[in-house]
């Protein structure tokens, strides 16, 4: 579903991403760990088509991102570290707006169901987003992805700044999305959340994917040790 082949990005003499080879299958959650500047966000941006690769190819559902940037949009959804959305609109209105931009027209009931699926409490639906907590906004972001019926979900530090409860809820939602067949690529600093939610975990350093492990094959402590050794 999501494939990087020798994916490289250079800015002048600096190599932000070096020969990345990666595949994320439907139903899989791949967590990319690494320090700041390791190349995680560059990888996400290359899959989103916001930057052009210097070498190699990023593909989504077998379609080259750089060659068909508009076509790949139908497959993917993106949730940044902080989902700001429109603070003057309610959660429901934000979802309606983004869904219509994605080409979907939902009734109010359907929109409410989507927000419920994403874990947002009913009483928050008609409140303006300006009054939402970060966790609540992330849930609207998830609802936007669900509404779009995205096959691929790209997440950039999604749990950063979330309290443990919100973070846990978020993990549960991600797992349920994966269970529906969504391929998820998540860049994160949170080793323990990665261990808990991911199917596979990759550790990056200086633009290179140094190691990839199956989450089920490693304990949280071992993952931490591996991470510290690698970075």
């Amino acid at each position, binding site marked *: 579903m999501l494939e990087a082949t020798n994916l490289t990005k250079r800015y002048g003499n600096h190599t932000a991403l070096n020969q990345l080879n990666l595949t994320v299958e439907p139903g899989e959650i791949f967590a990319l760990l690494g320090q700041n500047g390791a190349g995680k966000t560059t990888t996400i941006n290359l899959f989103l088509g916001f930057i052009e690769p210097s070498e190699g190819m990023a593909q989504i559902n077998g379609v080259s991102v750089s060659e068909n940037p508009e076509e790949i949009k139908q497959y993917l959804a993106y949730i940044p570290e902080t*989902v700001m959305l429109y603070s003057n609109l309610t959660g429901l209105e934000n979802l309606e707006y*983004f869904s*219509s931009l994605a080409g979907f027209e939902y009734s109010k009931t359907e929109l409410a169901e989507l927000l419920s699926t994403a874990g947002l409490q009913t009483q928050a639906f008609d409140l303006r987003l300006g009054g939402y907590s970060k966790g609540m906004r992330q849930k609207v972001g998830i609802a936007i992805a669900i509404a779009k019926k995205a096959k691929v979900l790209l997440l950039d530090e999604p749990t950063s700044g979330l309290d443990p409860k919100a973070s846990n809820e978020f993990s549960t939602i991600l797992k349920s999305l994966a269970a529906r067949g969504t391929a998820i690529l998540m860049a994160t600093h949170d080793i323990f959340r990665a261990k808990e939610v991911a199917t596979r975990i990759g550790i990056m350093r200086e633009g290179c994917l140094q190691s990839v492990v199956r989450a089920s094959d490693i304990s949280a402590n071992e993952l931490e040790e591996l991470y510290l050794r690698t970075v």
Partner: protein
Amino acid sequence: MNTRLIKIIARQEWAAFFRARLPLGLYAVLLSMSILAIYIGWQYVNNFNEHQTEAKEEVHDHWMKQPDRHPHRVAHYGYLVFREKSPLSFFDFGLDSYVGNSVFLEAHRQNTINMSEAGFSNGMLRFGELSMAVVFQLLVPLFIIFIGFHTIAGLKENGLLKILLCQKATFRDVLLGKAAGITLLTWFLFLPLLFLGLLIGTVSHSAGLSTDELIRMGLIVLSYGIYFLIISMIVVAVSAISTNARNALMALVLIWILFYVMVPKSAQNLGNTIFVAPDKITFEQGIESDIAKVGDSHNPNDPHFSELKESTLKRYGVDSIQALPINYGALVMQEGENISSGIFDKHYNQLIQIYKSQNSIASFLSFIDPFLAIRNISMNLSGTDFESFTEFQKQTERYRFEKTQALNKIHLNQIKFKDDSKQRVNAQSFQQQPEFKFQPVPIKMSLRHGAMGISALFFWVLASFTLLSFISKKRQFQL
């Protein structure tokens, strides 16, 4: 380009505006200023018209109350004519505030209306006025900047642009949607106000609404609509290339200063420097010097007038001017009037040409400053432009010439040469002369004068659209 998505994005821009308090507050301020400007303009024209009517009646009264007089004395008694305000001048004062409003008409003298500095006044002086045109030309763009500076830059800052672009909309759709949203919003907020203001102001000053006025009003609304579209596209373009909202705001404020202060002021200075106009004294000295070269009617040995004398005597078959059936003194004055009038026209046209050349700099610069384009079009359509003023000057000179020649004709035929100065003619003979009636510049002519501004406005629409398309293709502006 997906028009459905552009519409959705534009609609969102509307919703965002009406839910935010600050932009609504700003609109309320601008609305109050516009209403105040309509009132000030209306009052200004109203007071002006009242004073003009009073003065006109007084002058006419004095003219009509003249006793039986020698026609040459009547010619020197003179007559004051007044420049009528165009019905739309309450909207855009244009050059009205800086040029003279009356001219004294007398024999042998072509009194110019104030033509020096004020004849080319624009730019900085306009900041002191509060007309509807100033509000729409200077302040509405500021409003557009305020509501639009963050439209794309803000989305980049909070990561929302990436989410937007992950939907079906392309960057081009987003840019066009934002530009459409801001433009439609500005049209909705200001164009009905503009039209109503024009309608109320015009109807309250005149008995009815002529087709010419209606067309002018329509074209003013259309021109300002295009102007707001240009400003909206520029604001969206600058917001799109800025990395954050703060930078976008700073860049837009700089552009505002450039468009509304620096370029207009430079255009004025550049025009004055390249095309130097003579001052009033030099202008008048030039005329006097040329008249002296052609012929001096007061000099009995002047070759031109000696020749006139010879040919007149020959034509009537007499040997002395006393034997002529006409008054030779009046004939000399008629000829002197012909000469001075021709020379004045030549010098005046040269002077006008210099002023036009000065103005052409601003017209050319409207291709790098849309404010100059709308300013010129607005003045053209409101009848407060340079051409309307020169047209008044031309018509008054024509009227003066005809009036003087009519009096010379009375002198020629009704006053005998012998004891010329002791004779009188019946006051009725000069009381019957027609009143001066200014014929305003027709709409076709106004549009012809504003052709450069209109072209510049369309150039800007095309240029802004091209700029948005260019930006939409650059990936670096999406992050």
